[in-house]
């Protein structure tokens, strides 16, 4: 196995020079996301540095409770981020989105780590944390798209919802077109990326494993599994989020609550 080439701090800093190109582009086209980009960049560096530090310890301890606590924190951060990015109010959505996150991770980790990879110890930090993280990270992006689509459409097309509520034969049917559209919009990008994976995109995890010295065949097998886990995780999370959120987003007359959106 070849030794991996480490990246020096200077080389890492050099990488940041490339950011000049998009920033110049943003300034040229007067796209007001320079500040946001720089903050996100700063956060990424700090968060990843801290994680590198934490993971060292977490891997060393390899304690089920600590690992579960770590994944729980990831789920809660994902929940808050989804609500914030979708422009919704916290009080109605923390519970449904957090429950969806926990259930989807529970199903996926139990299935993939327990039955597919057949780990003796499913909470093994080296598997449990990165796989949960990959699924949650992807689920976050797709949940934000799907959930935003769902509530924005319900809000903008209220008349259609009310039309179907009266003329259709159930509340379930009146929400069906909105749910279909949300699931499609949330998962379409994932379907598209799955269909071109290996052709125009080499996924980060696989690349990382190969760079880390794994054989490409092993890396690809893991990548296939992780893609399956991501797709299933995103689907379960999005569908559950919508179904559970429906219990909080409507009043007893089936009307959309007026204070769902952050002002």
């Amino acid at each position, binding site marked *: 196995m070849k030794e991996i080439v480490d990246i020096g701090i200077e080389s890492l800093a050099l990488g940041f020079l490339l950011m000049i190109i998009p920033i110049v582009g943003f300034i040229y086209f007067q796209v007001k996301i320079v500040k946001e980009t720089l903050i996100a960049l700063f956060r990424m560096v700090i968060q990843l540095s801290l994680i590198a530090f934490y993971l060292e310890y977490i891997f060393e301890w390899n304690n089920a409770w600590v690992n579960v606590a770590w994944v729980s924190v990831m789920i809660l951060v994902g929940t808050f981020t989804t609500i914030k990015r979708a422009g919704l109010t916290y009080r109605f959505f923390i519970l449904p989105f957090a429950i969806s996150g926990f259930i989807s991770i529970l199903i996926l980790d139990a299935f993939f780590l327990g039955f597919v990879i057949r780990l003796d110890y499913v909470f093994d930090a080296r598997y449990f944390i990165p796989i949960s993280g990959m699924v949650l990270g992807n689920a976050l992006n797709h949940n934000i798209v799907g959930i935003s689509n769902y509530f924005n459409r319900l809000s903008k097309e209220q*008349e259609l919802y009310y039309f179907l*509520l*009266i003329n259709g034969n*159930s509340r379930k049917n009146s929400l069906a077109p909105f749910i279909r559209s949300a699931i499609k919009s949330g998962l379409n990008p994932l379907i598209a990326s799955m269909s071109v994976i290996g052709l125009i995109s080499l996924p980060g995890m696989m690349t990382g494993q190969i760079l880390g010295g794994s054989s490409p065949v092993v890396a690809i097998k893991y990548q296939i599994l992780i893609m399956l886990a991501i797709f299933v995780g995103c689907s379960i999370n999005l569908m559950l989020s919508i179904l559970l959120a429906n219990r909080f987003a409507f009043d007893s007359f089936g009307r959309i609550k007026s204070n769902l959106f952050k002002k």
Partner: protein
Amino acid sequence: MIKCENINLSFPKQIVCENFSFEVATGESVCISGPSGKGKSSLLKVLMGFMIPQSGKIQVDGLDLNSDTIATIRNKMIWLPQNSNLPVDSADELVVLLQMKEEQIRKFNQFLEQLGVKEYGGDRSFNEISGGQKQRIVLAACLSLDKPIILLDEPVSALDDYSIDLLFATLGSLPNKTIVSTSHNKKWLDFCDRTIEL
């Protein structure tokens, strides 16, 4: 029968009605009339439970309108929204959205013919037709659901005289339907059994 007793409905800057009461007998057609912006459509929304009045009592076929009975009450109604600005692109899409069964689809086609818009049915895009034609297609879809109470919000505002006559003939052919509508169109007011001034 629809019974509204002492309805008080107001918005922050507008009083729609105060101690407003009215009854609509089964099989009767009634039009709520009044100037634009007075809140006629809001009153229809009260009957459907989309707006809750500050006070007052609403009964439909002996059922008090509340969160327990709302689903049953709504199941007795069809509603044609004003202008039919629904984000729906074709008659076929309406069939899917309303999850129509075979018998309802047959009736839908029949009503499309009666309302003079049969050629615009199927998958023909609503972008190619006028607002009035779209409104008649939506009405045909609603009527095919065959429910006893018909709520029509400004049903003739986008129709010419010929289309209004087709609508009268169609509604006239439906036995024992209770119709509650909003309009200030003279021809429509004459068609209804009674007018309620808001």
